[in-house]
């Protein structure tokens, strides 16, 4: 895997594009080669892009509350397609309603995501975590 390369996008039938552009700019500035797939991205599009770029991580956003359905099975599909070591991050408004965050986090960790982020989080912190996780993954 190439530690600089990451894939970014908003999953499913979700058209929220503002946050996506902010993330693209921020991660690029932090030194990553960002492949930004934009909005309404399918699982296969995330995986194709990660395979071609040899990405270290896929960063999935979901803002419209259907994140659970959209993200289900992504880890398994990555493994099937040969991305057995890739980091999967997810963040945003992942579920509808007032589910406590701890439950949301557990649900997505169980799905195979390495990190789950709240709607509000410090991007500097995310970059730091991402670099640490990638360094660990590269060492195997």
């Amino acid at each position, binding site marked *: 895997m190439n530690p600089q390369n990451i894939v970014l996008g908003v999953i499913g039938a979700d058209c929220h594009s503002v946050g996506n552009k902010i993330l693209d700019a921020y991660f690029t500035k932090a030194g990553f080669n960002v492949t930004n797939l934009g909005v309404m991205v399918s699982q296969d599009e995330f995986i194709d*892009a990660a395979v*071609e*770029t*040899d990405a270290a991580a896929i960063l999935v956003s979901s803002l419209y509350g259907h994140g659970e359905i959209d993200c289900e099975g992504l880890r398994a599909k990555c493994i099937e397609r040969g991305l057995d070591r890739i980091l999967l991050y997810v963040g945003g408004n992942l579920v509808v309603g007032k589910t406590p965050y701890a439950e949301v986090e557990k649900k997505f960790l169980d799905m195979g995501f390495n990190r789950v982020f709240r709607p509000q989080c410090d991007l500097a912190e995310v970059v730091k975590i991402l670099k640490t996780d990638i360094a660990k993954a590269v060492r195997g």
Partner: protein
Amino acid sequence: MNERRFASIDIGSTYTKGALFALEADGFHLRARAETSTTVENLADGFGRVRGELAADGAPVYLSSSARGGLKIAALGLTADLTLSIARMAAYSAGGKVVRTYSYELASDEIADLEALRPDIILFTGGTDGGNSAVVLRNAERLAKSKTDAFILYAGNRKIRDRVLALLDGKPATAAENVMPEVGTINIEPAREVIRKIFLERIVDGKGLSRVVREIGRDPYPTPLAVYELVGKIGTTQPGWSDFGVIDMGGATTDFYSHTEAFTGGDTILLRGLHEPLLKRTVEGDLGLRVSSAALWDSERAYLTSRLRAAGRPLEEFDAYIRFVAAQPDYRPESAGEKAFDEMMAAACVRAAALRHAGTLSKVYTPQGGFYVQRGKDLRRLTRLVGTGGYLARTESAALLLEACAPGNAEADSQPLLPILPEAYADQGYLFPLLANLAGDFPDAAARTAVAGLRILKG
């Protein structure tokens, strides 16, 4: 006589055709035509006969050739929807015929298949620049160890180009810029140019073509590449022709060319997948009236069966006709019944070639409202559609070409982005390939003459 004359000769797999043109201020004027069967054993014989008949003494000769069934390319990519899809685009736009595609790591049976296929070129892609190297390098090793003698053109991840070429040392191989330097960025021109050069060096050699080339002192062009460039020149130079398509239907393949912006967007339409090029060619090896008729019957059975039933014709009779013409590539139908069969096959070719060339538009319901997602190329703005190739050049029927247009089903949630109601034209003199030869040196005159020679089809 001091008019400037040019001869153009096209050596096809069945016929060698030629024309003598005079260049005047308003374009080319046809002075003579000639045609003979292609002399497969020695292409120079047929060429010499046509040249003699044209009485082209002293006139410069421009040559194109699709003999030997054209340029056979095997395309290798990493993922089917990204690098492999772009590799296929590059092969088609270079005038090649894609004989096989492979993705991910080459398996041993795929290597065996590749060795047996003996393509002229293996277009080897995979990975963005700085992207995947593991799979690409393993494929390079496997190709190096294989028995294939095809020319290998590497147009994948640029960062490992030297390592790939080192691995392929001992094989005829070269490299071009990556066809997809970043995800979704299409960069096919450099690979296309290299394929054109390989065509000249490798394919010209043999069957008497090298002698012809020495005689005329000019490199030949692969016919479909010449036509591709002519279509581009018509699109950029002829008023009213910025959005048009050409269907070239032959005995073995049906080629579809389009010149139109692939995606024009709008607030509620989102493009997913690749943004396809303004000028695009696709080649369908299973759509043809003679050599490929059996393949056509397989691929388009549902459509053909419904046409046969509607006409009250027994399927067995059609089946027998298919087998008969497949063995006789130059057969012309005689009875009304045979003509009707050919017409149905032609309609099936036009329809399927258009559907495969065109993208789709699907309605997607989201919490933010209804959206449309476009995939592939939008052909709805094509205002003109030209038929060429022996059969379509002779047709009187606009309805046949309009098989390429959308069935009127606007309600469906996913619809093909086919042309809506273009004007239909026939390249009545079958001049496209011959003018295409001259388009490199005389783009405006060739494009203008190609358009002026078309016959508009009614009804």
